[in-house]
């Protein structure tokens, strides 16, 4: 009798090992994980150099882990168990109140931050004839600290914004996201499951920028506001794998007076006629619906009535917070150049003189800005 229980344990254990091992070999391996929104590890290459440097071993281990049978379900089990033990975060994402997910934001390294700001200042000094605006947006955790889990540590993004404002040269126009977002904090400015602002949040940024310019922004009534998706589970969900959240909705603001646009994507040498790529609405990262996701360099030309044009050209240096702002701006500026400095490696100064650009708008969110050193490339 005693031995039977032991036999059973051995059979179960060894059986599980072999079964999962066989499934690993025989189930098809995906290249891309929709749930995690990333490319999975490719099979490692068996070369002498790779083997001796232990690269082969490291990659093989990631390969097996990435393609382990039922990977998505295992992730789900971990997430459930973490919540069951009252853990309020998973992989750096908090599960906040009102179904909001937040990225943990801790005190940034102010020395680094200062260097990034100096980079922006130097760029301004080198281009004194250029009109520069710097827009810095809080992320959702900055605007809604009261929605964080009980007692959860979080650093004030308002302090960061104030620091930037103090260090930025006076001839650069600083636009503090808190100023134009806070009055509308009770509305849906951000996605709950993604790190971006919603189209409404982007609209507020657009209004603030246009008013700063002294122009007349379009009112909400000038748009047909269309819900293009109600199944968006964004990057915060991807990282945390918290389950049981209701998905976000994505809106598109389509101007009633339509403007024809032509988008040239320099990375791939493609020309498109729409700023919206609907194919992404069926994928995990639906935010790429706006402008088709990240491109290092693109130009957007819009066919505006000559009489309405107050400014011919604009250069936007940005992270992905700009993606849903840019479509609004095409209603005012006929030629917009967009550089994602994280991926663009050419000289920006040269690019500006080549294209006669005299007006620059930076759009960044605080979380990218404090952590991404790519702004240091500005003066290359």
């Amino acid at each position, binding site marked *: 009798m005693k031995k039977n229980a032991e036999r059973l344990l051995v059979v179960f254990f060894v059986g599980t090992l072999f079964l999962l091992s066989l499934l690993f070999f025989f189930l098809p391996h995906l290249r891309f994980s929709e749930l995690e929104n990333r490319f999975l590890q490719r099979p490692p290459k068996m070369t002498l150099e790779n083997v001796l440097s*232990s690269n082969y071993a490291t990659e093989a281990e990631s390969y097996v882990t990435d393609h382990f049978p039922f990977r998505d379900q295992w992730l789900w*089990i971990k997430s459930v*168990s973490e919540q069951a*033990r009252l853990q309020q975060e998973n992989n750096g994402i908090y599960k906040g109140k009102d179904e909001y997910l937040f990225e943990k934001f801790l005190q940034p390294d102010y020395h680094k931050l200062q260097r990034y700001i100096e980079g922006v200042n130097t760029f301004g000094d080198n281009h004194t004839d250029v009109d520069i605006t710097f827009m810095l947006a809080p992320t959702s955790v900055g605007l809604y600290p009261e929605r964080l889990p009980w*007692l959860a*540590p979080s650093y004030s993004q308002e302090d960061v914004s104030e620091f930037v404002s103090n260090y930025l040269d006076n001839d650069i126009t600083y636009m503090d996201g808190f100023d134009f977002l806070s009055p509308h904090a009770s509305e849906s400015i951000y996605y709950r499951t993604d790190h971006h602002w919603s189209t409404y949040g982007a609209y507020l940024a657009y209004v603030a920028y246009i008013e700063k310019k002294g122009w007349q922004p379009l009112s909400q009534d000038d748009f047909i506001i269309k819900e293009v998706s109600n199944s968006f589970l964004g990057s915060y969900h991807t990282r945390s794998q918290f389950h049981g959240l209701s998905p976000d909705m994505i809106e598109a603001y389509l101007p009633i007076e339509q403007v024809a646009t032509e988008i040239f994507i320099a990375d791939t040498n493609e020309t498109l006629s729409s700023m919206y790529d609907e194919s992404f609405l069926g994928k995990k990262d639906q935010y790429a619906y706006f402008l088709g996701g990240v491109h290092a360099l693109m130009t957007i030309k819009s066919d505006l009535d000559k009489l309405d044009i107050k400014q011919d050209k604009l250069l936007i240096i940005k992270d992905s917070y700009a993606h849903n702002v840019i479509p609004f701006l095409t209603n005012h500026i006929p030629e917009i150049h967009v550089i994602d400095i994280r991926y663009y490696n050419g000289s920006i100064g040269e690019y500006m003189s080549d294209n006669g650009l005299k007006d620059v708008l930076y759009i960044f969110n605080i979380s990218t800005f404090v952590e991404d050193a790519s702004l240091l490339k500005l003066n290359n």
Partner: protein
Amino acid sequence: MVFSSIIFLFLFLPAVLTLYYCSPRRIRNLILLLTSLFFYAWGEPVYIVIMLVSTVTDYYFGLLLDKPGLSPVKRKCVVALSIVVNLTLLSYFKYADFIIENVNGLFGTHIPLTELPLPIGISFYTFQSMSYIIDVYRGTVKAQRNWIDFGAYVSLFPQLVAGPIVQYNTIAHQLNNRSESIELFAEGIRRFTIGLSKKVLLANNIGLLWDIISSSQPESLPMFTAWLGIIAFAFQIYFDFSGYSDMAIGLGLMFGFRFNENFNKPYSSQSITDFWRRWHISLGSWFREYVYIPLGGNRNGLLKQSRNILIVWLLTGFWHGASWNFILWGMYFGVILMFEKWWGLKLLAALPRWVRHAYAIVLILIGWVLFAFETPTLIVGYLSAMAGFNNQPLWNAETGYFVYTNAVLLVVLVIASLPKKQAFKANKLSLYHLVWYGFIFLLSVAYLVDATFNPFLYFRF
């Protein structure tokens, strides 16, 4: 490769089990040798040479010692030579840069650092090899004539990279006369599963808390957070290391080996003397057997014994890493042990049980501060935070967050650290046990699949 990885569990282990159990008994040690070399080469494709050099020389030194008619002087030379070879390898790879740095610092010289990475497991396998040679020299075991059996002993993958340090005398017989069985195998599964879950579910998760707390400035830490942090570290290092030992012991059982225990509920200790009988037992026994007793142990009066204790704990500390804080950590315990030998234990015996326990825990926790931080500034800073000398409140909101988000885990950690009542000990395997082991195994796998944080603390040694 570490045991707590998907590739080990679902590719390496099934492959080794298949090879091992499909082979006739006489070639099973060869299978273990080959698979162990593969296991080691996986993580150290280059430095495997060092392990092979150490193994091959000690194999021949062993044969030499066994030669009849070898004069006592020559025998002494052989054993000394073997120790020199092993300690040279260990010193060169582990301590060279530490020595160079200190020489440069003291004399203003500019000797370049070697900057060699530490070969995995070198602190463990050199100690095992030395135990073998010394045992043969003493005549407590016969030299192993079969190179396969000897190679299998040194490289045996369950204990190769992080112990327990298996002394040759405890395993010599098993190398050729072990019998695998369903009972042993089932027991092995249980031990392995417990070890895996200790490592993956307990150590890794509480390690995240320690990671956050230890990376903040000690001047800004409230007292309670500082204590919570070092408690988290104490749990992390215990469950990490004892989890690894459990996995090693469990794997050994699956192949019919019985290794000695390496931990015995160290946090239930009533004194520091007690703690060191329960913590990393195989290292303690090694130093006892090959350093403390040869130095005279406790036989030549209290003064000599105190000297011996200090030497052994200096070495124990230094074994843990080439850094002053480990030496400090060793000396700290050496001094406490000395004090306990003189009159401390007698004093403690008069105190209530909970006072003894509190005394031991506080001293152990202070010890972990010395262990965890490398620089005097951080050590002093953290100790001041624990003492409340840094002008911070006793606690803040963050302390509360850390406590309630880890409350469930902390309760589990405390329960798992306590000795179990005899009645609850799992002697007989019941259905309840099967479900329990299945549950913690699958849960551990889920955490491994999502492993972004899976370091092994004892890989540094």
